[in-house]
């Protein structure tokens, strides 16, 4: 967002009002965002294929078939698919563990072919996608964070203000979201506090968490950077956390897309492509 920039303010003369077309997203934000959308889809889908090679998760330094898995996706003798978390098991036949692929073939495998890259089982190829685009993911985020510190995007647009983190303000914002009331006029120039929390947690917690737990699974990096293992409690814990952070990101994206749809997808997506955004008209 660049409206807080005094130079832009000067050219628009008076404060903008509902109906005006204003500058919303910086070029760096727009380029990072779409690079990241493509990269994230590749990372997620190739990651699910890699998970299929050993659909069990453990805590600690080691973990293999003889050890207790806290999460497992598989197929039973009775030909049902299941997901087990701890001692709770859910029947997921058709979606997870046992499903039918595009050619009508029934497969006993964790994630279905429509969710993985490549669609058929190929650990070597999935690792190539994942371990190549991990560089784009990591370097892209690092460059974006550095740029956003330098141009104050992080501090001005994403960091909630003291006023915004008052419980009363947060509660009011939650109520507005629940009633699907979106800000209009000048109030729509800035991200609201829930948006700020969501974006900040993606940018400084979830994506960095993915990158760091991913690095912790590399035996080469374990030698070069052994502190990573201490940080996450061992390689298999890092693998579990990698999976949990990925679920967190998927959760964010579901809500994110729902919000874009509710707030007016054309105007929203245009603002993330061209940078220009039409302020919603005041409701009075």
């Amino acid at each position, binding site marked *: 967002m660049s409206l807080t920039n005094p130079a832009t303010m000067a050219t628009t003369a008076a404060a903008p009002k509902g109906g005006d077309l204003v500058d919303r997203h910086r*070029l760096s934000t*727009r*380029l990072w965002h*779409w*690079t990241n959308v*493509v990269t994230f889809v590749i990372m997620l889908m190739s990651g699910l294929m*890699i*998970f299929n*090679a*050993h659909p*069990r998760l*453990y805590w600690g*330094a*080691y*973990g*293999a*078939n*003889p*050890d207790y898995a806290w999460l497992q996706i598989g197929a039973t003798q009775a030909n049902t698919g299941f997901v087990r978390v701890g001692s709770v098991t859910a029947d997921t036949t058709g979606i997870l563990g046992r499903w039918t692929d595009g050619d009508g073939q029934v497969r006993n495998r964790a994630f279905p072919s429509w969710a993985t890259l490549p669609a058929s089982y*190929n*650990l*070597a*190829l999935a*690792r*190539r*996608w994942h*371990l*190549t*685009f*991990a*560089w784009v993911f990591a370097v892209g985020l690092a460059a974006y964070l550095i740029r956003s510190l330098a141009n104050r995007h992080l501090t001005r647009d994403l960091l909630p203000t003291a006023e915004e983190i008052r419980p009363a303000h947060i509660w009011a914002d939650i109520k507005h979201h629940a009633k699907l009331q979106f800000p209009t006029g000048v109030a729509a120039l800035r991200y609201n506090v829930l948006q700020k929390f969501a974006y900040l947690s993606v940018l400084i917690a979830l994506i960095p968490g993915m990158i760091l737990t991913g690095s912790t*699974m*590399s*035996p*080469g*990096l*374990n*030698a*070069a*950077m*052994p502190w990573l*293992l201490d940080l996450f409690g061992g*390689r*298999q814990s890092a*693998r579990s956390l990698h999976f949990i952070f990925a679920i967190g990101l998927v959760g964010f994206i579901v809500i994110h897309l729902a919000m874009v749809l509710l707030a007016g997808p054309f105007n929203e997506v245009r603002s993330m*492509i061209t940078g220009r955004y039409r302020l919603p008209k005041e409701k009075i």
Partner: protein
Amino acid sequence: MSLLTRRSVLTGLGFSTIIGTTAGLVLSPSFRDLILGSGEKLAYQTHRLIGRNALAPEFTESQMSPDFRTNGNTMPASADYQRHMETDFANWQLQVDGLVATPKTFSLSALKALPARTQITRHDCVEGWSAIGKWTGVPLSALLAQVSLLPTARYLVLHCADDFSGNAYYESIDLVDAFHPQTILAHTMNDTPLSVGHGAPLRLRVERQLGYKQAKYIMRIEATASLAKIGLGKGGFWEDQIGYDWYAGI
């Protein structure tokens, strides 16, 4: 106002790169292979840059896996190997040759008589699981000192006794890993002679890489200048057959 402002040029370049790369990945198999091949090279170079001689983490006995599963071949089919197995590897010999000044062979008892290193390390399978075990064996560097590598040598190829449908297992490592202090030829696991399932009589431990690099049933170590003429040329059985990366540090 000119249409070609610095801003519009940057915008155009940025978005065409994103769209162009994505379209290339979807539409062009050769572009896709080119891009997807770059991850391994970047990882290899980065790891060598930041941790060339770094040691893999070692663990205590209390941190060991109670049950260390086997993987890959667990019983080489060759008649030769079967004979060695029946005679407890008494006549088995490791051959070290290729680009070395003095090729040599070593019996199992000769190897066991050499100074050994013991390490408790984590074994990471490419599929995702890990197991911690205790390995005792001869540092590969000590063996190489006895045969003297020629200056043209760049890789060590480990030829194994096992095969998958007639294709012999083999693996290869660079000289940084070959001379790394934790790279050993293990003859003992968890204080007992290496079992057949885990690669008797001798397997490689190259601790900063994944499981498929830990060649079992080693018969011969060959120093070479290139990997192109070995197997199908990719540096290892799985590399040749299904395209796993040769550098498996990640």
